[in-house]
């Protein structure tokens, strides 16, 4: 197992290098750039822009810029944000706390809710509750998250609520942690949890349902039942453990969505996460921020895949990486 992990990490290095070339290339390919955008303001002269270009080494050949950027990353320096005149890593770090908190909570809630519901709907295929749950599932899949956000905001407003965005009421944002602040956060938190989590919950629920239905028709389940095993054992030990395998691989892919998937929902709900920050950087062509965030999501994807593989080996004794 250790060899496997080591090998994966070694393979990750050239992969990341390749990704960094791609990321850098894509950013270079886009028309215009932050400095061109600056020229739109009549107060900015061509001279100013040329000076900034020199300052950030943007006047050098593309390969030199790339090496400079890569060298920085190796030393832990992700470059400078044009927009904020601050190091990129500081800016990302500022927003990391809430992003990880929200994403972890959402992923947790998604799994805790979706797996049992998937099992339930598979076992009671034609019951009224299953039909209702399936409907909610389809609704969650079919409705864009920002629309769900707007619907929820509307519902809160007509019921006289005030928790229509952000994670806190204005008076608590700067306040030190207290019981009241925690309660205020809980009052706000459910909306982002539903908005960000609904889509994932529906996907996992539908997937779990399909997998389980598939497994339940297998011969070994019939055999288990024929042996006279208790239905509880048949279900949890034989069926669910086999049905959940594909979902674990799926979970690995969920990690990079920490950054990218919640952009629009975060904007509509004014959440202090990386999403709106990435969006701003993309609009303003703040290239080092964009490249750092793209690299980060590539790293997260690889870490997520590795974790999923390890988890898979642990859950399913048949899988061996040798």
């Amino acid at each position, binding site marked *: 197992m250790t060899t496997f992990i080591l090998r994966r990490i070694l393979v990750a290095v050239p992969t990341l290098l390749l990704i960094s070339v791609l990321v850098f290339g894509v950013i270079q390919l886009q028309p215009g750039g932050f400095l061109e955008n600056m020229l739109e303001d*009549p107060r900015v002269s061509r001279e100013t822009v040329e000076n900034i270009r020199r300052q950030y080494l943007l006047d050098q050949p593309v390969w030199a810029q790339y090496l400079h950027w890569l060298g920085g990353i190796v030393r832990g320096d992700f470059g400078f944000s044009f927009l904020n005149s601050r190091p990129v890593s500081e800016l990302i770090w500022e927003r990391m706390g809430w992003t990880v908190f929200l994403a972890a909570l959402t992923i947790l809630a998604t799994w805790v809710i979706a797996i049992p519901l998937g099992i339930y709907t598979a076992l009671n295929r034609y019951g009224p509750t299953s039909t209702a749950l399936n409907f909610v599932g389809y609704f969650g899949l079919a409705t864009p998250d920002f629309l769900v956000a707007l619907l929820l905001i509307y519902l809160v407003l007509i019921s006289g609520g005030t928790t229509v965005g952000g994670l806190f009421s204005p008076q608590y944002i700067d306040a030190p942690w207290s019981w009241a602040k925690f309660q205020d956060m809980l009052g706000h938190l459910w909306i982002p949890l539903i908005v960000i989590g609904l889509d994932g919950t529906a996907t996992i629920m539908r997937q779990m349902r399909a997998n389980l239905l598939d497994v339940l028709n297998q011969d070994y389940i019939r055999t288990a039942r024929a042996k006279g095993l208790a239905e509880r054992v048949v279900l949890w030990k034989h069926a669910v453990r086999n049905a959940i395998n594909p979902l674990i691989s799926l979970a690995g892919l969920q990690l990079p969505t920490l950054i990218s998937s919640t952009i629009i929902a975060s904007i509509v709900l004014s959440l202090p996460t990386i999403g709106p920050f990435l969006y701003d950087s993309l609009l303003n062509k703040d290239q080092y921020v964009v490249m750092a965030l793209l690299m980060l999501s590539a790293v997260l994807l690889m870490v997520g895949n590795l974790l999923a593989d390890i988890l898979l080996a642990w859950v399913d004794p048949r899988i061996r990486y040798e």
Partner: protein
Amino acid sequence: MKKLLWLIAVSLAAGGLALAQPKTMPAYANLGVTAGKPGGSLTLSLASAPQTFFYYGAIDSAIQNLANQMFDGLIEYNLANYQIEPALATRWTITNSRVYTFDLRRDVRWHDGRPFTADDVVFTYTQIVANPEARGGDAANFDGVKIEKLGDFRVRFTLPKPAPAFIHYMRLPIMPKHKLLPFSQEGGKPRAEINTAWPTNVNPEEVVGTGPFRLRSYTPGQQVTLVKNPNYWKRDAAGNALPYLDQVQYLIITDSQARVAQFLAGNLGQINITGAEFPDLKRRETQGASFRVVQFRALFGSPPNLSFNYNAKNPELAALFKNSDFRRAMQFAVNRERIIEDVYNGLAERASYGVAPLSEWYYPEVARLQGRFDLNAANAALDKLGLPRGADGIRRLPSGRPLEFTLTYGSNSAVFTAIATILQNDFQRVGVKVNLQGILAANLLGTGRGADWEAILLALGDQPDPELRTPIWKPGGALYYWHQATQPTTPTGQPQFNNFLPWEREIYDLWERAASTTNFTQRKALYDRWQSIAAREAQVIMIAKEYAVGAVSNRYGNYIYSLGVIPGFNPLPLMFQR
């Protein structure tokens, strides 16, 4: 003895006056301003997180909003009539529109208690505003301007040539020398270093201004909190200290619908809204919601216009677009009345070039010269241009190709999208096919300044003096994007006069003369003439100027609409919590 006491009393009063020089605000009774009561807090919104806390370090609407509360300029605008009034300068003399001498207000203190003096003014203008590498500076307008200190409370600006609108630049916020010297060239740093002053993770104590509020804290991505400056130099008409509010918070809310929701939920005290959002909020107001929706005619703001690329890549289209008869024909097919009714819900009026209808510079004849919506007239004019209709109803160019062009607009703006669709429909009815191309509104100007467009909907800001908009409206200017062949080939070169159309040359000469004319009546006559030529030639087709609409909770009094980002126009110190 009595006489002596009297003498002491008089000299004390005189001494006190000389020391403290508060400014008493006009009563503004016509704006509904009354005496407020101190205390309370107000929550406003910012559309994006601030990029810096240094006004000149970025071109960023968030810091422009905040800087209005934290800093002051030498002059400011009257809130009712936009006339220039004293701010950090108490009075000034202007000689030949070339030498501007300012007497500064005494006993003004920075938020950290240090006195404000002429050194700060000279530092701000020489080291920051005139610094070509300060991203939010204005070096172009201060090129060759000599700035001198004439004593602790007097400064003089000597211009290389007369510039009658120069006084408007004196509303730029003055920065504290004692805090920013270490980032400046005078402090031994490269010029670009000034942009790194006061980043968003700065200690709030460092960010000191002279304004009504000072920075208390910033929570990244969520909120900026400002608190009252107890030593502010303004008084209300009754002599009470301003500002009234103890605290102003700004929630960072990117999405406009989320902003409205936060306002309806009572988490925001005031928001600026658009005509599109007006009916819903007004209905709630009449149904007894505890807020008011108020509309003002504003001097500032950006009316959209339709421009054609005189240098379009397709030579046939370029020839047509350059022809005033064609643009006038298209202008007949622009249904301004419908746009004002349907898109702005009636909350807009006809627009002129670069100056608001409210402005003293506005030339009322423009509306008549722009004409009315008249499809028959448009058809007749297009027929006369030799553009016959084909079998499909679309007109044919001389080459036989159909007359169609791309109209670029901002697809993330409800207003631009609706206007573009109305134009497309009406142009179709006169046999002109329009293909819509939506791009991000933020990229419109960038696209317009490039070569790759045929027609574009763009909004350019109105200013209190036309001269402030020279780069846009003077042919050959840096932002004269619809006829780029007139622009100089080098940044400092002369415009390419050989590419000027005759009427463009006429406008150019009017602007040249206006820039060195000091007499108001004469300047007004020149700019009137310019507006009439621009309208007559349909230089670009101005669409409409939106009214300023804001909604304010009934908890607050003395609300006056403010765009928020205009230096020198700040009604917030007068607002109070009931």
